[in-house]
Structures are given as C-alpha cells and as structure tokens.
C-alpha cells in the first residue's frame, strides 16, 4: 500500500468543510416536553437540520417558521392539532401518533396535516415522507442559456428571467455556444434566429448533433414574420417560436412552462425510479464531465463507491419492501449529508456512487465516513423486528486516476478491500492500516448489520 498523504496540499478540514448546517433544510419538531430528543436525533441522521420546539412552556418560535421546510408534530406535543393548523399554513406538516383511526385522520386532515405516521415510528417511512415533501429543496433554479447578438436584448431577457427566479447565462457569440452548453448545462436555450456569421437555425442543428442535447428545448426569438421560415426553424430542431418584439411577461411564462416540462421529462430519463438519484448512465456522464473539467482546471474530484453490507440478507430476512426502504433511506442520507454541488447516483442494485467535487480522497473519506456513521445508527423495521444496516465504501481521487474507468476501478478495489476487512468502513489508498474506519472493529459485520435491535 502506498501511503503518501503529503501529495495533497489541503488538509481534510480545509478541503471538505462539514456541510453548512444552514444549507440543510430545517425540520421543525413539536414533541412532548418530556421527550428524550430521539426524534431530533433521527431527523438529524437523515441529513436535515432539526429545530426543536418541544418546550414545556409551549412552542417558542425563536427560529422563523418561514425557514422551515416541514414540521413533525407528535401526539404528545402541547396542543398538537392547533399547532398543526398553525404550521400547515407555513409548510407541510407530518403528524406522528398512535391513534390512526378514521376520526383522528379526519381531525388531522382538517388541521392541514399532509401525512400521518403511526407508532412505533418507522424511520424508512419517515425518510420517504420527508424526501417527498422536502425533496424539491435540492432543485437548483431553472437554468436558461440566452443567445442573442443584441447585447441589450440579451441582458433584458436575462433580467426578466432572473427576476422570476431563474438562472440566466448570456452568450452573444454564437460560436461560443457549444462550449457554454458543456459548462452550464442549461435546461433551455433561448436563441435569436438572425445573427451574423451563424444563424440560430444553423446553431440549433449543431446543438442537435450531440445525443445529450436531443431533448433540450430550443426556443427561437425572431422578428421573422414569414410563416415558411418559422416552420423551417421548427423542423430543424426548434421547439417554439416567439415573435419579436418580445413581451417579457409572456417570455417568462413560456420559458418556465417549456423548461419545467423538459426538466420533468429529463428527470424520468436520467433518474433511478426507486431512489430518485441519477441513474448509472447519467452518473457516468457526469463523472466523465467532471474528470474533463479537472484536466482543464487542475482541480480534483473524488469518487466514492458505496455498497450496502449484506443487502441480500436484508431482503431475505425482512422482505423486498423493507429492502427498498433501506435503499431509499440511504439515498436520502447521502443527499442530505453532502453539499449541493456533489453528485449522487445509484450505480445499480445496492451500490451507489458519490462524486465529491473539489475534494481530495482523504477529505472525501471523512465526509463519507460521517454519513456511514449516521446511516448505521438508523433503525429500520418496527417493534421486535428492528434492524440496522451498514455500508462499505471505497474512495479514489482524480489526481491518481485520470480516466473514468481507472477511477471507478480504483474505488471499486478499495470498496472490496473494505468488505474484506470486515465491512462497515470507508477505505482509500491513503488509509494506513491502523486507521481503518469502523466503530466496532472487533465485532463481525454481520452481527452489526443485521442484529435485531430491542426497542
């Protein structure tokens, strides 16, 4: 094993600062004043910022409730239904209670509750609800690339779209558009038809030459009044046509509509239906893209391959429904524990990939290990059948492995090393033998991962 930590200029802490707590969506918790804060701990483990309002003197909304992404209210909280009615005006409300009778559900529905979770609480179910209700927090704003040789018009379109909460990038030089698309991944291209040197129609043809951009909506802007030319623009890859001069309100509405639909369609094509993470193909595309970016900029990314320990055992012992819940919860724990810029994908089966941008492998190990620790403490199942699950991970960095094939193979090798060393650990080539990461190295992984837990 080569141990050479001096290769990296940055220390772990500098390179991978813990995810800023403010960046994580906040979940308000209204529990019994006598509660042991286990709900707060559970929500934190799922990667959210838990804000407790469970005080004896009733809720003290010191944190602005507007900042909450959702709230959890238990039947033991002070005036739970009044609280639910109050909070449901601000954000989605989840109710946790032993009473799941029709009467209780009706009262909760009238108080604006989005979902009721029974007792004992199933963490997997809670994770799924939170993911459904809060999941959209990770969506970045709609990104629009504007191509118009008239700088003033381009700036104005950008201003209108930005004012409506979208992200707009202006490119006045048509020959730079293809490069700009690789750098910004737009959700939609807004393009002038009549430009000097290269027409918008020619540019659309060039964009459509790339398989990746086949489904990208292109909306043409033109003062062109001839229907024949408009038809030609559509036939050659344009999705819509807006006549100049442009009414800005109409522009914003049309762009949002087109982009929303394109994002939904793309998500269906690119995401894994079980976990909502990028699928294998798309994750590999992003890996290629980030490695290329590193080659150009001299930056560094790390790849972590994560494999659930004894997953077949989970399915056999607890059924596939529970198994799916474990995978979805892991997906949520990963997404919640990483920065927004990091990329998470389901590699296949029970294997996941994480691409940590601008992070060397030793720092990536620290981050993944934190998630490993958090995930291993989550209890699945209910009553006497609760169980915990662990994962093993291997990490490799782009400085030592430049091609996608090499970096995947290196991370895979480390992951198998982690499995062979007893599972429930994160390894990279830099890990010295004495620093294998495991909370209970003397315990067999099987007993850690599948041991039934007492309530």
């Amino acid at each position, binding site marked *: 094993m080569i141990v050479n930590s001096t290769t990296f200029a940055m220390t772990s802490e500098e390179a991978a600062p813990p995810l800023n707590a403010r960046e994580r969506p906040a979940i308000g918790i209204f529990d019994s004043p006598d509660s042991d804060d286990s709900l707060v701990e559970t929500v934190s483990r799922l990667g959210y910022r838990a804000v407790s309002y469970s005080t004896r003197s009733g809720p003290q909304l010191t944190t602005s409730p507007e900042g909450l992404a959702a709230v959890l209210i238990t039947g033991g909280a002070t005036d739970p239904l009044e609280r639910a009615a109050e909070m449901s005006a601000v954000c989605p409300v989840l109710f946790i209670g032993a009473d799941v009778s029709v009467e209780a559900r009706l009262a909760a529905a009238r108080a604006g509750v989005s979902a009721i979770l029974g007792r004992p609480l199933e963490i997997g179910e809670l994770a799924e609800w939170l993911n459904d209700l809060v999941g959209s927090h990770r969506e970045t704003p709609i990104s629009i690339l504007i191509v118009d040789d*008239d700088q*003033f*018009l381009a*700036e*104005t379109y950008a*201003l*209108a779209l930005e*004012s409506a909460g979208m992200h707009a990038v202006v490119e006045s030089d048509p020959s730079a558009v293809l490069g700009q698309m690789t750098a910004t991944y737009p959700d939609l291209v807004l393009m*002038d038809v*009549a430009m000097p040197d290269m027409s918008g129609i020619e540019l659309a043809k060039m964009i459509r030459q790339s398989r990746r951009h086949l489904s990208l909506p292109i909306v043409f*802007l*033109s*003062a062109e*009044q001839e229907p024949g030319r408009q038809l030609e623009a559509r036939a050659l890859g344009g999705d819509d046509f807006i006549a*100049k*001069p*442009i*009414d*800005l*309100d109409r522009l914003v509405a049309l762009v949002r509509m087109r982009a929303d639909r394109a994002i939904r369609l793309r998500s269906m094509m690119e995401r894994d239906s079980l976990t909502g993470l990028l699928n294998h193909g798309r994750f590999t595309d992003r890996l290629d893209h980030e490695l290329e970016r590193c080659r150009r900029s001299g930056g560094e990314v790390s790849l972590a391959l994560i494999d659930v320990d004894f997953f077949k055992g989970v399915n056999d012992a607890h059924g596939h429904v529970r198994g799916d819940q474990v995978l979805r919860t892991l997906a949520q724990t990963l997404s919640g524990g990483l920065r927004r810029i990091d990329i998470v994908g389901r590699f296949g089966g029970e294997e996941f990939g994480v691409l940590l941008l601008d992070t060397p492998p030793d720092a990536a190990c620290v981050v993944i290990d934190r998630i490993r620790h958090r995930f291993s403490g989550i209890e699945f199942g209910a009553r006497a059948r609760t169980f915990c699950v662990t994962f093993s991970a291997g990490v490799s960095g782009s400085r030592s492995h430049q091609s996608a094939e090499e970096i995947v193979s290196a991370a895979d090798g480390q992951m198998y090393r982690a499995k062979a060393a007893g599972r429930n650990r994160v390894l990279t080539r830099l890990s010295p033998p004495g620093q294998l990461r495991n909370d209970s190295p003397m315990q067999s992984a099987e007993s850690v991962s599948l041991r039934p837990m007492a309530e």
Partner: protein
Amino acid sequence: MNSMFELKFEGIRRRFVERAMDQCAALEGFVSAFDAGESDPVTRREVRRIAHSLSGAGGTFRFAGISSSAGDLEDCVRRPREPSALAEACRALIAEIKRAAA
C-alpha cells in the same frame, strides 16, 4: 416585475435609446442618399440591418412605434421600391426614435 427589475430595466432601456440615436444618425445619412436617387445594394443592406435590429428590440423596450416603423422600413427595403419610398420610410423611423429620446 418588481422595482429592482424596473430600475435595472430603465438602465438598459436608456442604453438602447443611446444606441438608437447613433443608428438614427446613420439613417439620416442614408436619407440624403435616397433623396439624391441613390440606393446601392450596400446601403440597402445596411438600412435593412438597422431596421431589423430596431424592429426586434423597440417593442421590448416599450417603444412600439419604433418596432412598427422599423418593420415597415425593413419590409420596404426588401422589395424593389423607389429610393423616395425608402427615404420616406426612413424618415418615419427617425421621427419615432427622436420621439423616444425626447
């Protein structure tokens, strides 16, 4: 649209008017040529370029009159019209630009 939008939009709109005034000066030169009965292809191409630009942008900057007369000029220059007709269409557009700048 909010007040921050309006503030920034006004800035771009002002720069658009300044540019339109430069284009206006060029058009005035072309009017003299058209009045003298000249309308060579280079001049017509340049007039068409300016008209196309103003027709596409004017309305967005809330100058519907500029878009409309620039559209007429563009239409006119595309067809085999007499120089006097071109001069007249140019004058209409010049008047609209000056009204916007006033």
